[in-house]
């Protein structure tokens, strides 16, 4: 197990190195230039020259990459051109918002998706099954930002129940030791702040969670159907076990295995979906920040931000692989 983990961690090095080259070339291949993005109509040829010199963009791309690599290895991801702040500072401040949102979205997806899929399988071919399939189809196909706007229209604008933007009410002055607002409120004993932060999380979590919810429901349904027809379930029935005990001990436990893998894969979807969700809900996380970085052609921010997210993504998948091995002894790696 330890060797497996070490090998996978070592594999991270070539992955990140290759990705850094790709990113470096990719952001520079975007049409236009940073200077044009920031100066607009005022981007005269002289101003563009001065800008490129100021940011070292006039040097050969290999020189630029080498300098970039050297600083990156030291954990310095450069300085955002648009905000003029270190990229690492930006990530430190914004990443917790994205994690909190993704976490809340995942909880929403699991809490609704698992029972939905399970009961759909139990009622295979009946009305409940069809309607849950239909719902999950909508969940997958409805664009996140569209759902977000509808949710906000109903719950914020019309009903006035929930806030439509941000992470916390502007009038709450709370301490943020960790950057996870709900957790911060609990740690500091500021229940009002924790409650308010949860309220702010609800709509974005539903919007962002709609995609993994649909996928989780479908996978749970499919695997429950599979497991239901297994020999051991039939044996359990023959033994005269109560149906609820069969479901709990034999069906559900085994049916959940594929779902764990799916959860790992959803992390990518959640991070991607965060770009739109955070923008529409004005949440200062990684997603809205990267969207601005693309808009401003902010090379250091794009390179650093995406590299960091890729690192997180690979790491999460490694954790999922490990946990999968732990849950299911059959697939333990030699």
């Amino acid at each position, binding site marked *: 197990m330890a060797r497996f983990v070490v090998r996978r961690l070592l594999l991270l090095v070539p992955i990140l190195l290759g990705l850094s080259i790709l990113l470096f070339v990719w952001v520079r291949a975007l049409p236009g230039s940073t200077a044009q993005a920031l100066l607009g109509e005022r981007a005269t040829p002289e101003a563009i020259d001065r800008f490129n010199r100021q940011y070292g963009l006039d040097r050969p791309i290999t020189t630029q990459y080498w300098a970039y690599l050297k600083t990156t290895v030291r954990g310095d991801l450069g300085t955002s051109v648009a905000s003029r702040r270190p990229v690492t500072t930006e990530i430190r401040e914004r990443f917790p918002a994205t994690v909190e949102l993704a976490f809340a979205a995942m909880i929403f997806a699991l809490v609704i998706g698992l029972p939905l899929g399970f009961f759909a399988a139990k009622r295979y071919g009946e009305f409940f099954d069809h309607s849950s399939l239909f719902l999950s189809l909508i969940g997958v196909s409805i664009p996140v930002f569209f759902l977000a706007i509808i949710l906000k229209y109903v719950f914020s604008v019309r009903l006035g129940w929930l806030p439509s933007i941000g992470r916390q009410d*502007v009038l709450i002055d709370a301490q943020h030791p960790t950057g996870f607002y709900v957790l911060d409120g609990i740690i500091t004993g500021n229940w009002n702040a924790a409650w308010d932060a949860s309220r702010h999380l609800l709509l974005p979590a539903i919007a962002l969670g709609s995609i993994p919810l649909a996928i989780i429901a479908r996978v749970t349904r499919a695997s429950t159907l599979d497991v239901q027809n297994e020999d051991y379930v039939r044996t359990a029935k023959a033994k005269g076990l109560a149906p*609820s005990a069969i479901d709990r001990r034999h069906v559900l436990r085994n049916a959940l295995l594929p779902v764990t893998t799916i959860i790992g894969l959803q992390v990518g979807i959640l991070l991607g979906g965060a770009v739109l969700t955070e923008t529409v809900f004005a949440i200062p996380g990684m997603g809205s920040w990267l969207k601005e970085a693309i808009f401003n052609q902010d090379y250091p921010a794009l390179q650093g931000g995406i590299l960091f997210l890729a690192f997180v993504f690979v790491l999460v998948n490694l954790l999922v692989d490990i946990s999968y091995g732990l849950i299911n002894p059959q697939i333990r790696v030699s």
Partner: protein
Amino acid sequence: MSRALRFTLALSAVALFATAAAFAATSRTHASDTFVFGTEGDPVLVDGALVSDGPSLRAVNQMFEGLVGLKAGTTKVVPSLATSWTTSKNGLAWTFKLRQGVKFHDGTKMDAKSVCFNFSRNYKLPGYLQGESTNYYWVTVFGGYAKPATGNPGPDKSLYRGCKVVNASTARIILTRPSSSFLAALALPSFAIASPAALVKYKADAGSVGSDGSFRPTGTFGTSNPVGTGPFKFESWRIGDKLVMVRNDSYWGTKAKLKKLIFRPITDSTARLQALQSGELDGANLLAPQDVPSVSNSSSLKVLSRPAFNIGYVGMNQKQGPLSNIKVRQAVAYGLDKKAVVGAFYGGRGQVANQFMPPLVEGYAKKGVPDYSYNPAKAKALLQEAGLTLPVTLEFWYPTDRPRGYMPDPPRNFQAFAASLEKSGFKIVPKPGPWRGGYLSGVQSGKAALYLLGWTGDFGDPANFLNVHFGAAGDLFGFNNPALFKALQVADAEPNLDKRTKLYQAASIQVMKFLPMVPYANASPALGFKKNVKGYVPSPVEVELFTPVSIG
């Protein structure tokens, strides 16, 4: 099983209603002396000298003041920290009498020394802070640095020569050549006077240049310790979340009505609109044109309009094809159906323009401007007079993306213009391109014959429109007209404001006779507010002061 299912469903339903009820109990109103304003983005820094973007300038404007200010809702220069000013006969020395007894938020005194400190700070900025991306307005208005970094203009190009402390309440700014446009520019938050003690203490200009070539500011003046003399004081700033300001109770002038002013950055215009509709915001900047009706039709909201301060135009490069011939340029001007375009694609927020500046700018010619109303017959006649066979083929460049304030829908503007030109003896070859993917750079390097472009004023001075575009030969328009260059230079140098205005009115007409481009639209940006908000006076230069604003 069905029992379990029913139980779960019932439980979920109960939970859902319980949460909803609990949430609903929370109120969404706040105290009436706190104003929450939704802006289009975060400031970069709250340090006027180092920014040029709207969100930054708006924040700086609440906390800092310059020597001069603007009369609310206009571009008319009025006294601020300076109570009066005089110009020497040769137009080179500008002497400012300062308001007495004004203190910075940190308790230090505002005097002639602090004024000169701020000007000299800009002039002597370290190399890594020089240039348009960081110090745009200094480069644009004063044009030079004491010790220029490679590629930046030096003292030989500078309009600024120095600043002299005459006595504690009198400061003198000395120029290298006569210019008057700089006075209007001084009203910009970028030339606001900051506390010298705080600039030094919080290392406003400190920074390091990384090995990747990018510089990194390290001081905290512009991020957490901005100190000016303005009606609001800085309280806190959490990037991406909120910038909080509080009333300056020892302000020298009329004190703010609000106790607290909060700017929330919301980049997405739909999100800004919904936050306004849900009551989370008291006001929102820059409504999208399509959202304006839903705000104006609402019983609890209202729309305010900024006077137009931009100009959309069809550019003509005189190095391209027959455009060096004035008759052909006139034919283009007559061949553009400006009224139809403004009527159709500006959501009722545009006016047809007849010269290269919005009506609010001093120097706007009220009469005598040549009339180029749509007239296909006249256009054809002019082309024939020029000895050309019809149709005359011209390339017309337009951007496929990035709507601008002065041009909400570039492709449709193009289509309508192309159709009207084709009725007027031209054959149009469309050249679409993404704004940043070659369009802008192509146009600015002189490759486009006809093109769609525009300009939003930086400050309320005709020089910022006319001199910037037609004051010297350039690739954008591709002409050399020494008489026009001279006229604009003379107008800019005139220190007497009345005479100057007349000179600019004449110059504006001269430009329209020479026709380097055809202006067609001025567009007004819209803001949304709760109906009970009072005192907000929209400004053409987009940086409104919140001092007179109140709720309820």
